[in-house]
C-alpha cells in the first residue's frame, strides 16, 4: 500500500501542474531557504512561505523543484486563494 496512491494519479498530477500553484503552509516552514536556492528562475519562494502567499507569479513554471526539495513538506500544489489572484489582476 502506498499512501500517495489515494490522491494522486498521473493524470491528476498533470492537471495540477497546469492549473495550480505552489502554496506554502507557513506553520511548517523554518526559513532554511532550500526552496529559493533550488528555484531555476530565482523566485524567492522562502519569502512567499514567510508571508503565507501562494507563488502566483507568471514566471513560476510549476516545475516542482521547491516542492520536492523542501525537507519539511511546507510546499504543495493547490489552487491559489482567490483573493490573491484578484489582487494580482488589480495590479
Amino acid at each position, binding site marked *: *500500500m*502506498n*499512501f*500517495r496512491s*489515494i*490522491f*494522486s494519479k498521473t493524470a491528476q498530477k498533470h492537471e495540477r501542474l497546469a492549473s495550480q500553484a505552489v502554496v506554502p*503552509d507557513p*506553520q*511548517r516552514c*523554518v*526559513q*532554511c*531557504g*532550500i526552496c*529559493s*536556492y533550488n528555484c531555476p528562475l530565482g523566485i524567492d519562494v*522562502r519569502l512567499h512561505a*514567510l508571508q503565507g502567499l501562494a507563488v502566483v507569479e507568471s514566471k513560476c513554471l510549476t516545475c516542482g523543484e521547491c516542492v520536492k*526539495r523542501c*525537507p*519539511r*513538506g*511546507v510546499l*504543495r500544489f493547490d489552487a491559489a*486563494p482567490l483573493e490573491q489572484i484578484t489582487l494580482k489582476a488589480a495590479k
Partner: protein
Amino acid sequence: MSLYAIIGSGAAGLAAANAIRARDPAGQILILTADPHVHYSRPGLAYVLSGELPEKQVYQFPREFFARQRFEFVQSGVQAIQTDAHTLRLEDGRALRYDRLLIATGATAAMPEPPGMQLEGVVKLDSMADCQHILNLARRTRRAVVVGGGITALELVEGLAARGVEVHYFLRGDRYWSAVLDEVESRIVERRLAHDGVEIHYHTNLVEVLGQKGRVTAVQAEENGRPLTLPCQMAAFAIGIQPRMELAVQAGLKVQRGIIVDDHLRTSAPDVFAAGDVAQVFDAQSGQYLLDSLWTPAIQQGRAAGANMAGGDVIYEKKFPFNVTRLAGLVTTIIGRVGKGETAGGRPKGDADVAGIMRGDSELWRLSPEAVAAQTYAGDNRLRLYLKDNVMVGAVVMGDQTLSRPIQVLIQEQVDLGELRAALLSDNADLARLLGDFWEGYQVKHAAKIA
C-alpha cells in the same frame, strides 16, 4: 519615545522586533546579541552541514531589511539585568536603560562531562559558528563518533556522513529517540542510517575522549558492558539543550526549567518578557508550564511578546506543538501528544540518550495522550494516531506526507471524528483511506476554514 531592548537575535527576538515595529513606528529597538552571525535559520544549519545549502542561503533577512525596520544591533552579550532600575549591564562595560525588555536568549547545548571534552574535535551544533567549525574539521576527519539523541544528533550523523566521514553513532539504550518515537519508527530510522553506512552502537556509554597534542584521537566507551576504544578525529554531542537563563536567575526572575511566563509572555518582573526556547510557557490543556524548542512557537511567542511590549493585549495560546523534520531522509511530522507519558520528578522523562529537552522538541510530545492508538505502516511510511473520545490528540506521520496536513488540521481544529472512531480502531483498519475519504468530505464542508 519608548525604548525596547531585546536580548537575543534568533527566531523569537526578531519576531518580537518586527511585532514592536508594526505597532510602534517611532520606538527605539535595540537588539543585543553575542552571535557574530546575528540572524539565520537555525534549523537550516543541518542542510548547510549536509551540503544541500550554501551558508549564505540561511540568512533569512537581507541587511537592508534590518535598516528599513530601524533595528539597532548591539554586538555584545549582557552581563546583568537590574529590573528595578530598568537597566542592563553589557559585557563590553556599557550600561543601557530600557522601558521594556525581552529575554530571547534561546538555549545552548548541554554537554556531558567525561574527561577530554576540552580537546579540539569535540563539537556541538548550536550556531553558525559551530557549523563552520565542524565543516573545517570535517576535511581532516576520517571517522567521527556522535553521542546523543533526537533531531540534532541525527543532523550531525547525516551531515557528517554526507561529507564522507565514517560515522559511529552511540546510543545508550536499545533504540533511537524512544521518548517520542515508537519501536517501529525507531527501527525504520536506524535501518536507513545503517543503509547509509552509519554504524550504530547500542547500549554504549562514552567514558572518555582521548587526545594527543590537544586534538581528539579516539574515544573510550563501554559497549554492552565491554570496553571499546574507537580511534576517531571528532566527537560530536547532542544530548539535549539547556535554556540560557543565567541572566534571569541572577535578576531574581521566577524560573524552573526555563523562565516562567504568563499567557502574555510576561515574566515575574515588571516590563520584562521572555519568549522562545528560554521561556517555559503555560499550557492550558495539561495545566503545566512546558518548554518547546521549536521554530514556529518561538516566532509566535516572539510576536505576542513584541505586541504586548508595545502596549498590545495579545494572549499567546499554546497550540498543539508540531514539528516537521527529516529523520534519516524521511520527512516526519510529529503533532500533539504522542509519548509514553512517563514522568520523573514531575517532568516528562526523556530517553537515556538525552539530558532533557532537545532542539526541535516539545515537552508536550512526551506527555501521554491518555488515548487509544491506531497505527499502520507500509515500507518506510508510517502513521500513528491517538484518539481521545472523538478527537485526535496526537500523531506521527513518517515518510509519505500526503495525510500530514489533513491530520494537522484535524488535530488543531479538534474535529469531531465520531463517525470514524470505530473504523479507525478496528483491526487492520486502512487508516490512510479512512482519513483520506473523511478529509475529502471535510474539505468540501469547511473550505473557508482550511484556506
